[in-house]
């Protein structure tokens, strides 16, 4: 049983490696620790510290944080001219539930292609899924990928038309008219947006094929580039079997927008359980040196769960935290 799982993980790892190596991406291996991170209000992190063996006790320790994604390091490599890169990285997200689709430590496939945009990467993702789902009976993973814009999906599955024209108040009203409980969720545009997404859109997505939700509202703060002349961000999310599997952007390089993102998210981060400093030098890297590129992040364990027909991540992660904690 354990041996079977080890084999499956190893096989999937090498299939992914072969795929990206053939495409001339370079595999990289970046640190799990960082003294600062990209501020993302919804994500709680794990904090730890480095102790200088020769330092005075009074000096205290150097705070470090476990990365919630390898983005901080991979973007630095891209800025220094790495070219297209990929990595299978252990990532850490605190204060998430244990169970079916979450484990606080998980494996992420993150890749960046230089001189490419988000739609190029949708092709890459489709090719990757075609390769990986060969011989699998999991229909939800087998291309072609069904493409639908977020605006179409809101109209079709939540009955909310013309998402482009709705501001915070407009979306709130439309959501309420659609019978969605927004009473305590009305703090911000993205809160209302995500409530509708989680309550109506996600559960209604087809599960017999992969679905890409394309063009998210730019009002949902991310580091995705804005689609020129539109209210949309160049971002897609791919769902397989109803599970959020891949997130992809054309990476933001505009100084003002990167700065804005860091500022608003840092403000919202003040409520974080584990506060961390924002990675300010990264703003400079992204604004000055980051090449045109697009990055995708795929939940490796979720992919394996779907490929092997498991119902929960606990069936594919070697030592899920829920089991580790139960042994204590």
């Amino acid at each position, binding site marked *: 049983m354990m041996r079977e799982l080890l084999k499956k993980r190893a096989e999937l790892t090498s299939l992914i490696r072969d795929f990206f190596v053939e495409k001339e991406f370079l595999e990289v291996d970046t640190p799990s620790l960082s003294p600062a991170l990209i501020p993302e209000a*919804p994500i709680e992190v794990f904090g730890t510290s480095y102790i200088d063996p020769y330092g005075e006790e009074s000096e205290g320790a150097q705070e470090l944080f476990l990365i919630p994604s390898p983005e901080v390091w991979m973007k630095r490599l891209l800025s220094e001219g790495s070219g297209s890169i990929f990595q299978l990285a252990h990532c850490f997200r605190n204060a*998430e539930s244990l169970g079916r689709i979450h484990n606080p430590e998980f494996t992420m496939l993150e890749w960046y292609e230089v001189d490419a945009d988000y739609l190029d990467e949708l092709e890459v993702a489709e090719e990757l899924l075609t390769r990986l789902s060969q011989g699998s009976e999991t229909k939800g993973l087998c291309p072609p990928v069904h493409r639908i814009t977020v605006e179409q999906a809101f109209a079709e599955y939540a009955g909310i038309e013309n998402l482009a024209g709705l501001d915070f108040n407009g979306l709130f009203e439309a959501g309420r008219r659609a019978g969605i409980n927004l009473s*305590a969720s009305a703090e911000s545009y993205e809160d209302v947006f995500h409530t509708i997404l989680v309550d109506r859109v996600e559960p209604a997505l087809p599960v017999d094929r992969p679905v890409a939700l394309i063009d998210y509202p730019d009002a949902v703060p991310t580091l995705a580039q804005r689609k020129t002349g539109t209210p949309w961000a160049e971002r897609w999310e791919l769902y397989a079997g109803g599970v959020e599997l891949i997130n992809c952007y054309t990476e933001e390089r505009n100084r003002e927008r990167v700065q804005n993102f860091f500022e608003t998210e840092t403000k919202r981060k003040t409520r974080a359980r584990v506060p961390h400093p924002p990675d300010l030098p990264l703003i400079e890297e992204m604004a000055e040196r980051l090449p045109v590129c697009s990055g995708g992040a795929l939940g490796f364990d979720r992919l394996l769960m779907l490929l092997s027909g498991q119902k929960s991540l606990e069936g594919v992660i070697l030592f899920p935290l829920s089991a580790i904690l139960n042994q204590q």
Partner: protein
Amino acid sequence: MIKAGQIDKGMCLLFRADPYLVAEREFVNPGKGAAFVRLKLKNLKTGQVLRETMKTQEQVEDIHVDDYPFQYLFADGDSYHFMNTENYEQIEIPMAGDEEKQNYLKEGETYDIVLWDETPIDIKIPYKMVFVVTEAEDAVRGDTVTGATKTVKVETGLQVKVPIFINQGDKILVNTESNEYVERVNT
């Protein structure tokens, strides 16, 4: 009050002025959004099932419910009548939405009633119950096919598929969730 993130399966909540049982709970963290909990709630008064999504930071009212033993007396068309076996106090529980419970209520038998603030909200039917067969056709002679069944009626009116050797007056153990025959009882 508790945070929605603390909701667990099996808990009871007061939601829009009605008591609900949490039948299913799943946490969802959109990669770039706040944490949510998706719930399947069962209205304990009407049985109606509701799907709700809440932010895990949202406040919800958890309620305390308790089981008490009551003796079943009779049904009058609108309500089931029960009696508290300790103080002989009688209560009525509306039948609306719960009509099929009648199939499992035997006069004089004791059942656990779920009370919330003295309001009865649910009758707990034991998972397995013994019934007396009140109507059964005789097995057709020569019908010896293994696994052959027939349908009988028990004292509450419930119809159960049983093996052909079961006769009127026999006592049988029945699974009350599936209405399947389990075995003949020899007492």
